[in-house]
């Protein structure tokens, strides 16, 4: 039986904030699927891309681990980029497009699959889950961008009840940037 995506909630940026979050996620499904689409706005930032940070349950401890594997593509070449970080307070969202324009057109996208987000399927006291993300980011005006996958781990025993996406300091998420959460109830 095909899984159905039940819409649980979404947060939409108004152009004045650097963080989007979804709280009080219902503990009613087996899995979650999270979508983000957005970019950063800054008139002073000196680079074309910036860091984004994905966080669970507002946890600022060292319970996150991530491994990203991405392909940078451009008119003049390409490169393979890999990274692995553990004991982190966040999961890295790489290469979020930044522009001074509030009407900028390129976006960073990710889809994150979180299986067993309530951690009910564990029989041990160690309830560590790993998640799969696929992402893409473009800089159309420079004819380059990245596509890739990431494995994110949340090594805390608590069920996931909130999810946030934060752009790096002194940048805000462009108006209309969107974070969405869907639930899947497996049959």
């Amino acid at each position, binding site marked *: 039986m095909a899984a159905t995506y039940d819409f649980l909630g979404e947060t939409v940026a108004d152009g004045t*904030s650097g963080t*989007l979050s979804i709280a009080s996620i219902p503990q009613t499904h087996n899995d979650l699927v999270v979508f983000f689409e957005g970019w950063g706005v800054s008139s002073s930032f000196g680079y074309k891309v910036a860091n984004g940070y994905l966080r669970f349950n507002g946890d600022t401890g060292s319970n996150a681990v991530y491994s990203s594997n991405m392909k940078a593509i451009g008119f003049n070449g390409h490169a393979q980029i890999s990274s692995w970080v553990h004991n982190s307070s*966040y999961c890295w969202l790489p290469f979020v497009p930044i522009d001074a324009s*509030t009407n900028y057109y390129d976006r960073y996208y990710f889809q994150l699959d979180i299986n067993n987000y309530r951690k009910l399927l564990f029989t041990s006291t160690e309830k560590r889950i790993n998640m799969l993300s696929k992402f893409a980011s473009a800089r159309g005006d420079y004819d380059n961008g990245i596509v890739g996958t990431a494995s994110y781990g949340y090594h805390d025993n608590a069920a996931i009840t909130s999810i946030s996406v934060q752009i790096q*300091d002194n940048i805000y998420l462009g108006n209309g940037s969107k974070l969405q959460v869907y639930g899947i109830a497996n049959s």
Partner: protein
Amino acid sequence: MSENIEMSYTRIEYDCSTGIQTTIDLTAEEIEQVKADQAASELRAAAEEAAAIKAADDVAAGKAKLKELGLTDDQIAALVG
């Protein structure tokens, strides 16, 4: 179009239990965390860059050593790319 909009330390949060989206001012601790996240990612980037430079230097040194041993450029390329 470029506009200067004042950055505010807030988060926009949707509460699934109420269906309401609100804008919440970050606490002092949360603002510090935003800055700490940035510092951590800059450290990570610097470490990765240093590792990449070292790896490139090691490759160059290794190729030079192979050259000293009498291998041709084609043979070295076949071995290490």
